[in-house]
């Protein structure tokens, strides 16, 4: 058996309707994005692509993404009221629609988020059944599902860095489930997206951050908790 789904995917998930890919998955993309930004944003430019571009209103994906950006979970009844709740916060939002983006997955969302001096650009895909893929972060290809504990490390593209980081993580008794590496040009910046079966200790994160060739470490624990 390839998939070995949990029975809680057969009787579940418990979620706000109407569609696991248009609501639950979209909320989860928002929840990942605010963890990457480190805070609930003040401004959000939200672009819906392809299949999402026409249907996001009818499926409530607009409410779902704002709910995720305000850290609501996928079964939170406030999702339905999130347009109003975002205005009260205030979380200023703009929605855009782009069709025919042939290089992007049919259900893609781009988020440009800002608060004070912090900003980030995240591209997320909703794959169905609430499963997501965070395809890009600030232009780096990341491809992680955020179903486990995830770690993003932006570091100088130096020899041996991947082995070094993997070793540090394994010393914290964390098993790496998936890892992807992308970089912008040779010997420039590289981005490691690492998914781990269990959480990582704050001290390990601090150590990784302290390395002189590491620019940024972002830890995204299980987003459904």
């Amino acid at each position, binding site marked *: *058996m390839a*998939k*070995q*789904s*949990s*029975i*809680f*995917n*057969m*009787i*579940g*998930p*418990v*979620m*706000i*309707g*109407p*569609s*696991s890919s248009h*609501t*639950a998955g979209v909320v989860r993309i928002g929840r990942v994005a605010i963890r990457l930004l480190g805070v609930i944003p003040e401004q959000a430019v939200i672009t819906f692509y392809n*299949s999402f*571009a*026409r*249907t*996001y*209103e*009818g*499926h*409530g994906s607009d*409410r779902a993404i704002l709910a995720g950006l305000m850290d609501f979970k996928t*079964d939170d*009844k406030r*999702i*339905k009221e999130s347009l109003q709740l975002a205005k009260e916060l205030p979380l200023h939002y703009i929605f*855009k*629609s*782009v*069709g*025919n*983006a*042939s*290089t992007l997955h049919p259900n893609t969302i781009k988020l440009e988020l800002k608060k004070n001096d912090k900003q980030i650009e995240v591209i997320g895909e909703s794959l*169905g*059944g*609430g499963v997501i893929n965070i395809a890009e972060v600030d232009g780096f290809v990341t491809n992680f599902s955020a179903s486990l504990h995830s770690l993003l490390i932006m570091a100088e593209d130096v020899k041996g860095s991947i082995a070094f980081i993997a070793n540090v993580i394994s010393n914290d008794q964390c098993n790496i489930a998936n890892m992807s590496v992308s970089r912008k040009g040779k010997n420039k910046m590289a981005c490691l997206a690492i998914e781990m079966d269990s959480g990582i200790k704050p001290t390990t994160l601090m150590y990784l951050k302290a390395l002189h060739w590491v620019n940024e470490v972002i830890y995204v624990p299980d987003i459904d908790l």
Partner: protein
Amino acid sequence: MAFLFNSFLDWKAYSVAHSMELYDVVLEYEQDHKGQSAEEIMKGILRAYQVMCDAVKTGLNEEMKSRSGMINDGAKKVFQSPITVLSPEFQKLVARALAAKEVNSCMGRIVAAPTAGASGILPGTLVTLQEIHQLPDSVMVNALLLSAGIALIIQEKASLAGAVGGCQAETGSAAAMAAGAITFALGGTVDQQFNAVGITIQCMLGLVCDPVAGLVEVPCVVRNASAAAIANASAQMALAGLDPVIPVDQCVEAMGEIGQSMETRYKETALGGLAATRTGQEIAKKVLIQDIDILPDED
């Protein structure tokens, strides 16, 4: 090594060989793969059942109007209708399946069982079953465990997704899960439980996924109600000893084969069937976003 849900025949053989109930095999599977205790799993299933019951109540008591306007308090109309076609119980069954599914369409809280598009069928059938037969929650939990096993096999051998197998994969699978659950709860044998699944699949085969404007509303909502009725009809036949002739595993294979050969326009793309009708297209024009930047084709 716990049983991996690959066929109904093997599920039965495994349960006989290990002197386990069918639902115990499901429980063992979940414990083995996800590392949760039996108690935690049963608590989680009971919680899901409570969400189903709440969805039925919400759909019958709160305003259910979708943004598109296509959903407009249908469940309440059925529940309060002075005309009873078969029996008050049947009227309630239809109203409850509609109610839970309308909650889904109107952005309320539901259990995707197995999917959000089919989220009215188990609530409608199980709430009605429990009420009529005064069953304890423990029986409902075991019935839901059994239905999860049914879904695991359908997912493995066919599909649960409308985008892959059409509506038969969503409402058909939910109805099959419900029929198995009803037959179990009313004391049917293992063969009768499987026959109920097989009969339901035979009744639901070939159903296409053709949602108007791509929304999970029309015909999804009424199909949840009709699928709930079919689940009950199938359980009635199976409990009476009716033989579906084609074994359940082969019914599931047929569902997979039909799903594979179904054209893309009938798989949630909103390009065929009801979505492509004149009225369907007019509604789509009204509710879909028109202000959209279309990128040029790449050469």
